[in-house]
């Protein structure tokens, strides 16, 4: 049934740190790899070595420039995948019941055997989190690596989403956001985690942590006193060279 559960037992999701993300796209690649080899239809590519190579991805990294009214612009790398919304519009529009939100952990999934590939759920998602696979004709989306996080055949450190496991910068965090004592909830609390497009009323589970404000050239560094020049005038060989060059005709700059 495509009705949304009134409440989920847990609320699993990601917290993405925009301050730490370096925009390396490792999460994109590991996601593509894991989800092509495991749960559901593989993520196909179209013309991978031809003109206009395209493919299905469940996670994509944008790069933005933020220009404040004063000061320098800031670059923000911005990974974007399914936010597993509490009020997921993609679920309720589904005509077949293929899209659903799990009561036990809040993960939004697609039953690919029931998906007719109408694409309406992708239309309903404001985040571009769903992509219709061009080879399989079914809707693909982030599963929060449901086939890893409960998979006891994997070592414990691997029982987290592939993107989180891969991130070399530690910019991605996974956990239960309904538990206020969890690491991810603490991160959101202390760093001021925010929602994307809150005006859409989707109540996203995934949160983003803001990048810290860019340093200004005028900021006084703690190390500044240690970096004072030790000699204003050149001495020794450089001092002799300075004076010798001054004596040559041609003036100075």
């Amino acid at each position, binding site marked *: *049934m*495509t009705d949304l559960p009134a409440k989920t037992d847990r609320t699993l999701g990601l917290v993405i740190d*925009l301050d730490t993300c370096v925009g390396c*796209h490792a999460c994109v690649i590991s996601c593509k790899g894991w989800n092509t080899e495991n749960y559901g239809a593989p993520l196909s590519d179209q013309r991978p070595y031809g003109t*206009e*190579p*395209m*493919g*299905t*991805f469940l996670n*994509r*990294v*944008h*790069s*933005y*420039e*933020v*220009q*404040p*009214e004063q000061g320098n*612009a*800031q670059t923000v790398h*911005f990974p974007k995948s399914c936010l597993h919304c509490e009020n997921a*519009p993609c679920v*309720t*529009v*589904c*005509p*077949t*019941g293929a899209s659903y939100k799990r009561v036990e952990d809040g993960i939004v999934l697609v039953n690919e055997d029931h*998906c*007719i*590939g*109408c*694409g*309406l759920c*992708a*239309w*309903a*998602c*404001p*985040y*571009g989190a769903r*992509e*219709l696979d*061009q080879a*399989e*004709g*079914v*809707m693909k989306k982030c599963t929060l690596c449901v086939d890893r996080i409960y998979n006891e055949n994997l070592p414990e450190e691997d029982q987290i989403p592939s993107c989180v496991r891969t991130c070399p910068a530690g910019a991605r965090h996974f956990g239960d956001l309904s538990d206020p004592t969890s690491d991810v909830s603490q991160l959101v609390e202390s760093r001021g985690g*925010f*929602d*994307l*497009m*809150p*005006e*859409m*009323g989707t109540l996203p589970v995934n949160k983003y942590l*803001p990048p810290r*404000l860019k340093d200004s050239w005028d900021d006084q560094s703690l190390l500044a006193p240690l970096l004072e020049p030790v000699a204003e005038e050149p001495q020794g060989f450089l001092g002799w060279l300075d004076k010798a060059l001054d004596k040559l005709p041609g003036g100075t700059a």
Partner: protein
Amino acid sequence: MHPAPSVIVFSTLSGLGFGLLFWLGIDPTPPTGLTAFVFFAIAYALSVGGLISSTFHLGHPERAWRALSQWRSSWLSREGVSAVLALLFMGLYAISLIFLEMNATALGLIGAALSLFTVFTTSMIYAQLDTVPRWKTPLTPALYLSFSLAGGALLSGRVNMAILLLVIAAIFQFIWWQRGDAALSDSGTDLGTATGLGERGTVRSMAHPHTAPNYLVKEFIYVIGRKHAQKLRRIAFGLTFVLPIICLLLTFSHVLAIIAVLSHVAGVATSRWLFFAEAEHVVGLYYGMR
């Protein structure tokens, strides 16, 4: 939004077909025998033809029957259920008129209500989407219903009713276009809210995730239609409303009636193409586009 031909054909033909079924269903003195056969054949060709066309854009058309299951939450599912029921009731009504020369008034009225409701469900598939501000308005159902009723009246030969409804539909179309042009900026959603970084400054998309386009870009960011949008609006308006009304005001002849119908159908198809081609999905904002 990408204007998929199958969806445009569907919404154009089905709207007309269900509109015609509505007028046939509420007719106190409906045609019988061969005349009824011709009218119902046209109505069914349009509505069923449109429905079949709509399955062409599915990834798995063989599973389309599953779409009848989620009518409690999904407008698309409601559309499927309502269309099947409307065609069922109107089918029985048509059989009684064609073969038994009997007017089963109740069947006709139920079928007419279901036909109109089907058009309403189609419009709600679009009007429900917060992600496409141009569509997210009660004017969208008003547009679809007025088009369907006007087209149905035209096809069923109700001259005065057709003129009146064409004028009403023209007004809705005009207001819908006017409102639509400001809908995205009025919605308050921009790259600032999309990234949550808007309060820090002006956000600009610097690099897309991939060098080539992807499903999202192709499905949601369709810019080709905008170049000639204003001209196409005038063409659509002239074909859908102005020419048919002139034909209807002149002394009745079958040639003029056929011109009016063909012009109307071509106009509705143009208007529906614009309905998709001009619509901006908020996902485009993430790509610095609209």
